[in-house]
């Protein structure tokens, strides 16, 4: 086993995802390294989201889906983890649009942890504060934790969703275009949070915004029509990619 494999948090080998007759992902193999941000870029329908959803088996919830190939999390095949809920607690997810549950800010954060056990008040308070701080939201909401999460602005809602995912204490977090509906200032705050989060976690970031991949990605993978064209260090992808199609895409000649 080479050094890269040894520090791989997730290893995807020959992953093919089909939705009925449609092939969304075709024989994709790549690694996600520990404590990195792996950015995944590519035009619409390139399979970015399918790849993400396969990593915590959320894709299993789609009717008619079939998955081939292996995904190893710390060397263990995720298909062999009997309790898919445990996998999803280890590999968390933040969706494209902020989806606060229609309850208070506090209850949103506690939703995940309380699925497993009741928290004591002090423990819950600590968890809420640390999660909100890590998502750079604490100062804005600390005085109104009982307010409905629906009253927050879009950017605040998305950071709340990040905090809610953090509260489950996942090792890996999957971000599916987390800034697609946000203004530039909110986007900057989310990116700031990502850069801090990767110190202790491994992040996978699907983004339609190639500049975002360039700003925060340690490595970048380029997908096209369900195939992995290349994955490499972000600076190399953006300055000296190995494939023409990657260059065309990152320089905005198509897509």
């Amino acid at each position, binding site marked *: 086993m080479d050094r890269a494999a040894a520090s791989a948090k997730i290893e995807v080998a020959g992953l093919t995802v089909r939705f009925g007759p449609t092939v969304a992902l075709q024989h994709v193999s790549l690694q996600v390294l520990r404590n990195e941000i792996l950015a995944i870029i590519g035009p619409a329908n390139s399979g970015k989201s399918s790849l993400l959803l396969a990593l915590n088996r959320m894709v299993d919830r789609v009717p008619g889906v079939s998955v081939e190939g292996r995904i190893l999390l710390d060397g263990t095949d995720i298909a062999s983890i009997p309790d898919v809920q445990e996998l999803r607690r280890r590999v968390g997810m933040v969706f494209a649009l902020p989806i606060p*549950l229609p309850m208070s800010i506090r209850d949103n954060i506690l939703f995940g942890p309380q699925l497993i056990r009741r928290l004591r008040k002090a423990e819950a308070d600590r968890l809420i504060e640390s999660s909100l701080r890590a998502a750079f939201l604490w100062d804005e909401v600390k005085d109104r934790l009982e307010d409905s999460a629906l009253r927050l602005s879009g950017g605040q809602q998305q950071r709340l969703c990040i905090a809610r995912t953090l509260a489950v204490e996942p090792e890996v977090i999957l971000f599916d275009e987390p800034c697609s509906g946000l203004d530039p200032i909110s986007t900057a705050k989310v990116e700031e949070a990502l850069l801090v989060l990767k110190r202790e976690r491994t992040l996978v970031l699907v983004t339609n915004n190639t500049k975002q991949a360039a700003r925060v990605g340690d490595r970048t993978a380029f997908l096209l029509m369900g195939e992995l064209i290349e994955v490499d260090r972000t600076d190399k992808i953006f300055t000296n990619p190995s494939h023409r199609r990657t260059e065309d895409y990152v320089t905005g000649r198509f897509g």
Partner: protein
Amino acid sequence: MRIAPAITERIAKFVLMMSCATAVLALIFVIGFVLAGGLMHLSWAFLTEPILDMGRAGGILPAIVGTLLMVFVAVGIAAPLGVASAIYLSEYTIEGWVTQAIRFGINCLAGVPSIIFGLFGFILFVVLLGFGWSILSGGLSLAAMILPTIIRTAEEALRSVPSQYRDVAASLGASRWQVVTKSVLPYALPGILTGIILGIGRSIEETAVVIFTAGSAVQMPKSLFDSARTMSVHFYILAREGVSNQNAYATAAVLICTILIINILAYTIMHQMMRGKRAV
């Protein structure tokens, strides 16, 4: 020739407003008519005394008790069964021809005339299972009658909960049952309750099913195996056979008030349940 939008706008507004006014007036008229004819004959004695002389004298206490018991049996069985079925259909099955066939069947059942359920209840509960003409037979038959409505409204309520709530819950490590109980049911509850209230209303007003399966005894029922009449049946017999018009109206007034009270109770309970579950 085109009519100017400003004019069509006025016409539309007028027609819509008049439609609404007609509907509301019709309702007020019906309820007002019954209450006006009935309330003046109402007395405490009417509510608390046994039925005497086949309804010519005395009160309607046995009919009130019979109504409440039968509705309680019907809703007590149909509500949990119906909501559970709806949850299964909406959350645990993959949409396909089987679920569509089931849904089609349920919709057909919801449209079957109640007299058919009366006949079914008579054959199955009264005769085959030997429950006789009783509150139990009546309640079970009413349950069968309102079950399709409860399933249908509950399923619609469940489906109207945005699918993202389910995705979020699942991504946070919720099992399927937790997804249902924590992030779907709380938001579907008002719709589900509407279906149950509709079911209560239909059970209370039903006569055909009850006459077929619970009989029309005037005595105070002592157990679920006793025959009993509901207020609707009592009203029907009094009015149809010309026993006592004034007691018929009084019974109708009590019936309307009962439905009103049950609705208020149901909505109050719903509000209590929703508090804290949902900060709006």
